């Protein structure tokens, strides 16, 4: 379970998060929506322990990730998978090496087993045949899928997705969302998806939270959020619905 308790964060005197509190129960997926620059990715980085809050805390199974250091922090992160907005693949490694890297470094699996596991994972995300290409040789959608394979290869308990469909065409974007949903069905991870894909993302998540001016403006089931009469929520969700 992920508990975000009263998290505040400022950069150079500018407040980005002003007391955000959210709870994501085990096995559930939350979509985090909101206007660009409202602090969604910043909040996600707090959950991953890449940033520490100025005030408040983020608990992962009752363990404060912000105050954890050294081995306890690494142990917490080993349970996490993170899909970066740009993929963050190691550009000097092939797709195969990228996906195999966490297995080689953090498990004692044999080379043959790692090879078969990586090939399976790449097939699952539709990258069979591109194993030995480098990140610079493949498209943006393929980079996202390779990054997803790398994030999922160790069967994480918690998955964090930072705008997984940004910059992709609608067909590839849909395919990525379906892939995330299929992986969730299989692995039952607890997840947070930062996204602008409204209403498409509503069909694959359990809860939706909207960040507005540094606070949680609305939280509930996708149906609750769609039916919300709050003007700020309507201005955002309603507009997206109309465009869809």
């Amino acid at each position: 379970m992920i508990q975000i308790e009263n998290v505040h964060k400022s950069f150079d005197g500018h407040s980005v998060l002003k007391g955000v509190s959210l709870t994501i129960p085990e096995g559930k997926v939350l979509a985090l929506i909101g206007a660009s620059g409202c602090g969604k990715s910043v909040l996600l980085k707090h959950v991953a322990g890449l940033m520490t809050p100025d005030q408040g805390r983020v608990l992962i199974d009752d363990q404060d990730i912000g105050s954890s250091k050294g081995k306890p922090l690494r142990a917490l992160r080993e349970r996490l998978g993170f899909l970066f907005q740009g993929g963050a693949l190691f550009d000097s490694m092939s797709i195969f090496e990228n996906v195999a890297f966490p297995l080689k470094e953090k498990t004692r699996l044999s080379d043959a087993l790692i090879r078969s596991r990586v090939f399976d994972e790449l097939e699952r995300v539709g990258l069979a045949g591109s194993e030995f290409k480098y990140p610079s040789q493949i498209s943006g959608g393929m980079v996202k899928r390779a990054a997803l394979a790398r994030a999922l290869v160790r069967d994480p308990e918690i998955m964090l997705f930072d705008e997984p469909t940004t910059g992709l065409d609608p067909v590839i974007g849909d395919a990525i969302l379906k892939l995330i949903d299929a992986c969730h069905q299989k692995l039952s991870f607890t997840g947070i998806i930062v996204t602008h894909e409204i209403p498409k993302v509503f069909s694959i998540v359990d809860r939706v939270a909207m960040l507005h001016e540094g606070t949680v403006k609305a939280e509930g089931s996708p149906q609750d959020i769609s039916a919300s009469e709050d003007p700020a929520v309507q201005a955002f969700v309603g507009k997206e619905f109309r465009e869809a």
Partner: protein
Amino acid sequence: MTYKGSFATLRPMNAVRKLGAYTLGHLYRMGTMGLFLVRMLAYTVIPPVKLIRLLKQIRFIGFQSLLVIFLTGAFSGMVLGFQGYYSLSRFGSEAFLGPMVGLSLIKELGPVITALMVTGRAGSAIAAEIGIMRISEQVDALELMGLNPYRYLMVPNFLAAVICLPLLTSFFDVVGIFGGYVIGGKLLGVGPGTYFMEMANYVEMSDIMEGIYKSLSFGVIISWVCCFKGFYTSIFTGFGAEGVSKATTQAVVLSSVLILVWDYFMTSLLF
């Protein structure tokens, strides 16, 4: 009038405030840099060392620098051969060309020029590589896999630099001494016996060790500064390609300056 008056009082205060912020900023950077070195040294002595990555960096910093070290060593020795011969011949002391070339190279020019060459060739590349990894979130990805970036990125570079610098310096010295002999011995007529025997008489083991100690410390400086500048790219030098470019430039400039400053202190201590 009131408006102008308030500006007049504010300007000196703003200047003091800016000076204070500038000083604090520099102190913060120096402290961060010091802590970075401590962490890098700590993870160097705490196993495991990533052996494959270490060998890769030894190949990059050491083996791939051999050609540039050969060329700079040969031409530095040849210049010393010319300059030394003409200077010594004024006093009728051409026979001491060997010791002059040997001591100059072994104690001073070898370690310093080798370190400056490695900074330009490998140090800049290290800073750029880590900087690009930082801005493209590859360092964050490493951390999120539960892996320690110091162990993966800094320690192999640090160990490779500390291992390679003395070896490259020795190679530079040998090539330089033969370069000096080609000019002094073959071109200007100082016999090989005189050149090498006088060198053997005057160059002592302590002179050779002085050069080795210097090159070891230069290895620490290069890996420390270049890894630090790359690792803190988005924090201290800005974002994107411009941030990486600034970090790389700063890494080369700061390493080169520190090498020369530290060389002075080492020479004073070991003189």
